[in-house]
C-alpha cells in the first residue's frame, strides 16, 4: 500500500470561514477539501481517503452533530474536529462522547487546530492499521471449512475446554477428528497454539463474546 497524504476535509456553510481556513492550512502544506454543507461532503467523501474532518457545528439542514451521528451509523471512522461560533457546552460534551477529537470555539488558536489535526491524522492512521489486521484475520477465517469454523468457534468461546475429548463430546464427533481439524485450523489461521488462536479471534472480534463484538472494530 502506497503512503497517501492525509486530507483535511472542511465542512462549513460560511464561505468566509471556508476560504480563510483552507488558505491557512494550504499555506502549511496540507491537503484541504472544503464543502458548503454536510450533504455535499457525504456525496463527495471516499472512505479510502485518509484524513480528518473539520466540521462546523451549526449549519442549516444538517448540523455537524447530525453528520457525526450519520457517519458513525454507517461505520465510517473518520476523526472529527468540531468548530463552532456558538460554544454551547451541552452539545460539545455530546460530540466528545461520540468520539470527536475536540470541540473548538471560534475563533481558535491556529496551533490548537493544527495539533488536533495531527492527532486526528494519527488516530486515522491507527484505525486504518487495525483495520488491515482484522481484514487479514477475517480472510484467513473465511478460508476454514464449516466444520473447522464450528470447532474454532467452540474453542474460542470455551477456552477452558481444551481437551479433544471434551470438544468431541460437545460436538458429538470423534476425538481424532477434532485433533485433525484443530491442526488444520492452526495451520490455516497461521497461529502456533490454541491460545494464540483465541487471542487473535478475540482481538480482531471475528469470534468472541457479544460484548466483545461491540468493540470499536465492529
Amino acid at each position, binding site marked *: 500500500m502506497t503512503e497517501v497524504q492525509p486530507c483535511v476535509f472542511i465542512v462549513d456553510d460560511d464561505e468566509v470561514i471556508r*476560504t480563510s481556513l483552507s*488558505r*491557512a492550512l494550504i499555506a502549511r502544506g496540507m491537503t484541504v477539501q472544503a464543502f458548503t454543507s454536510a450533504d455535499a461532503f457525504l456525496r463527495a467523501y471516499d472512505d479510502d481517503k485518509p484524513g480528518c474532518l473539520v466540521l462546523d457545528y*451549526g449549519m*442549516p439542514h444538517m448540523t455537524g452533530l447530525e453528520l457525526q451521528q450519520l457517519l458513525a451509523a454507517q461505520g465510517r471512522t473518520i476523526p472529527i474536529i468540531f468548530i463552532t461560533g456558538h460554544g*454551547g457546552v451541552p452539545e460539545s460534551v455530546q460530540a466528545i462522547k461520540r468520539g470527536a477529537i475536540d470541540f473548538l470555539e*471560534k475563533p*481558535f488558536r*491556529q496551533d490548537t487546530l493544527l495539533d488536533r489535526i495531527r492527532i486526528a491524522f494519527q488516530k486515522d492512521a491507527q484505525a486504518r492499521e487495525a483495520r488491515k489486521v482484522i481484514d487479514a484475520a477475517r480472510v484467513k477465517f473465511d478460508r476454514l471449512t464449516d466444520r473447522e469454523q464450528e470447532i474454532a468457534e467452540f474453542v474460542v468461546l470455551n477456552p477452558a475446554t481444551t481437551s479433544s475429548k471434551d470438544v468431541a463430546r460437545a460436538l458429538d464427533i470423534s476425538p481424532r477428528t477434532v485433533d485433525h481439524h484443530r491442526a488444520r485450523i492452526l495451520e490455516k489461521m497461521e497461529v502456533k497454539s490454541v491460545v494464540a488462536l483465541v487471542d487473535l479471534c478475540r482481538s480482531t472480534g471475528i469470534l468472541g463474546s457479544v460484548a466483545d463484538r461491540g468493540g470499536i472494530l465492529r
Partner: protein
Amino acid sequence: MKVSLGLLLAVCLAGLQFLAVTFVVFSSYLTSERVLLDHARNLLSDVGLNTIQNARGFLYPARAATELASQLAENEVIASHDLELLEKLLFQQLRLSPQFAGVYYGDEGGNFVYVKRDTGLGPFRTKIIKHVEGQRETELIWRDNKYNLVRSSLDPNDTFDPRLRPWYQQAAEEKLAIWTDPYIFFTSQQPGISVASPVFDQDGDISGVIGVDIEISDISRFLASLEIGENGRALIINRNGDVIAHPDQSLISTEDENGGQRFVSIDEIGDPVARAAFGGMLASGEIGQAGETTSTFVVDGEKYVYTVKPRISDVLPWTIAVYAPENDFIGAIKSNRVANIWIAAGIALLTGIAGVFLALWIYRPVEAFAVRSALISQGELSPSDPLPSTYAELERVNETLVHEIAERKKSQREYGRTFDFSTRGMAQVEPETGLILRANARFGEIFGYEANEILELSLKDLCHPEDVETFLNQAAGEEPNTDDSQERRCLTRDGSVLWLNIHAIMIRDDNGEPLHAVVTIENVSHIKEKEKEIQQLNRDLVHTARVNMMSHMATSLAHELNQPLTAITQNMDAALHMMSAEAPGHDLEPILRESETQAHRAGDIIRSLRDFLLKDEVLKEDFDLSELIEQSLQLLRSEARVNGVFVGSEVEHGTRVKGSRVQIAQVLVNLVRNGIEAIADDNARLRDILVTAKVGDKDAIISVVDTGPGFAEGFDPFARFETTKKDGMGLGLSICKTIVEAHGGKLWFERSDTRSHFCFSLPRATKE
C-alpha cells in the same frame, strides 16, 4: 304686538251685536219689499185678467146678436126685404143689450136698416134707406122704449150706401163675421167697435150684411173703476198701437187731419207714464207678444212696475197694459226705512256698549292674573300666595306656573351650589374678550387668586403664553361636546406652570347667539407627573424586554461575531506563515483586504447591537426604515442560519418614518425571531421569512411573513402571558403591540394559505 284679550272680547261682542242687528233689519226690509213687489205684480196681472174678462163680457153679446140676426135673415124668419120687420127685430136686439150703440142691416140692393140709441126725440132712432122703383128714400124714425113711433121724417140729402162701407165689404168678402178695429163713432163721437156678419140667401150667395156697433167707452169707465194701488192704471192698446181704452177717456181721442176723430197712439198719449212705459213697444213691435211681461221702469225719478198681457185673441188683438208706481206698495216701508235704521243703530250701540262692559267683566280676572304673574316674576309676590277668584283654566295655568317657578328656583339653586362648591374650578367667561364674569372659589384657588381678584382678569392673563390662542379658541368653541376637554398649560399668580384639564361649554340664547362660556378646569399637574413616571416605567420595561431578548440571542450573536473574527485570525495566520516561509511569490493583499472586510463586518454587528441596547430617551425621530430593517436583520442572521431559515427583505431605500428607532427595531427583531422559532419548531419544508415595507401617503406598513404553521384557532398572539413557546413568557408581542400603538400605528396578524403575516403600520415622516 299681541292683541289684548279684553279689547278683542269687546270688539267681538259689540261688533257681532252690530252686525246681527244690521243684518236682521236689512234682510227683513229686503224680503218684505220683495214680497210686496211680487204682490204688486200679481195685482197688476189680476187687473189685466179682469180687464180681459170685462172686455170679452162686453163684446161677445154683440157677436151672438149678429149671428142670431143673420141666421134669422137666412131662415127668412124675417123677410130681409121687409125692412119694417127687420127694424123691429133689430130694435129688440138693441134693447136687450145695453152696450150696443146700434144694430143695422144692409143688403145687396143698397137697402139699409139702422137702429140706434139716441138722446134726441126718442131713446131710439131708426134710419131706413130703401129703394123703391129706382127711387132712393131715406127715412128717420124715432121711437120710445116700447117701439111706439115718436116721430118720423125723411132725409132727402142722405147719401149713405151700406155696400160701400168697409164692414160690409169685408164681411161679404170673407163670408165670416168680422170685427172692425175700434174707431170713433161718427155720430156719437164715442169710441166703439163694429161686428159685421154676412147673410146668405138660399143659394148660398151673399144677400146682405148685418152689423152691431158697440161703444167701448164703457171699457174705459170700467178701467177707471179699477183700483190699482193708489195711482195705478190699466189701459188697452190695439195691435196698431192705438190706445182704445184708458181710465181717462178724454185722452184717447184726438182730431185727425180730416177734422174727424181718431184714437191717439200709445207714443203720443197724454199720460206721460204710459207713454214712457209702453211707447217704446210700438217702435220695437213688442205689443201683443205671446207671454205676459212684467218689469219696472223709472219716470221722473219715480219707479214703476208694469205688466203687459198678451193679446186677448186673434179676433180681439188687444193688449192690456197695467202699471203702478212702486211706492204705492212699498212706499210705507221705504218711509219706514230710515226710522228702522236709526232704531237698529240704537240697538246696535246699546248692545255694543253692553258687549264692552261684558267683555271688561270677563277680562277682569285675566288682567288680575297678568298683573299677579308680573309681580311673581319680579319677585314681589310669592307664587304660593292665594289666587284671587278666577277661571278654572287660569287656575290650572297658575298651578303649572307655580310648579315651573319652583323647578326653576330649584335648578338655579342647584346650579348655583354646583358652581360655587364644585371641586373643579368653574367660571363664566365673556366669549369675545375672555373676561371672567363669575368664578367659584376653587377657580381662584387653583390660580392662586382671591375670589374678587380673579374677576378683574381675562383668560388671556391666566394662560401659558404658548397656549393662549388655542385656549381662547376652545373657550369660544363651537357646540358643547362632553369629550372636548383639553389639557393646557396655565400660569398661577406666582408664575409657576400648571397643567389644567379645561372643558368649555358655550351657553347660547334661543337664536344661537353666544351668551357666555362656562369653563371648567381641573388641576391635572400631578396626573401629568404620574403619566411621565408611567411613561418612564414603560420605556424601562420595553428596554428590559429588549435586553432580555438580546440575552436570548447572545449565542447566535456571538456566532455572528465569531465568524468574521475566525476568518480574520485564519487570514492572519496564513499571512504570517506566508511571510515566514520562503515563498515570496505569495500575494498578501487579498488576504489583508478580506480581513479588513471581516473586521468591518464585526464592527457593524457590534454597532447594531449597541444601538439595539441603547436606552431610548428620544421619543420620536425621523429615520430611514430600510436601514433599520437591514440592521435588525443583521442581528438575526446567525440565528436564522442555524435554524435553516432564509430571511430576506424587500424595502425601498430611503423610506423615512417617524418614531423611536430602537423600539421599532425591537418590534422587528421580535417578529422575525418569532418567525424563525415557528419555522424551526415546525420542521417545515419552506423555511422563508420575508420582511417588506409598503409605503402609503400617510404611513408605511411593515409586514413580516413567515412560512411557519401559524396559530391554533382561538389563540390570541397579542395577549399577555399567552405563548406557544416552551420557554417564552408571552410578553413579546404584547410589548410590540404597545410600542406600535404608542407610535400611532396598529399591529395585526393575518394568515394566508401557507404563511403567517405579522404587519404593523407606522406614520411616515412629514419631511423627507
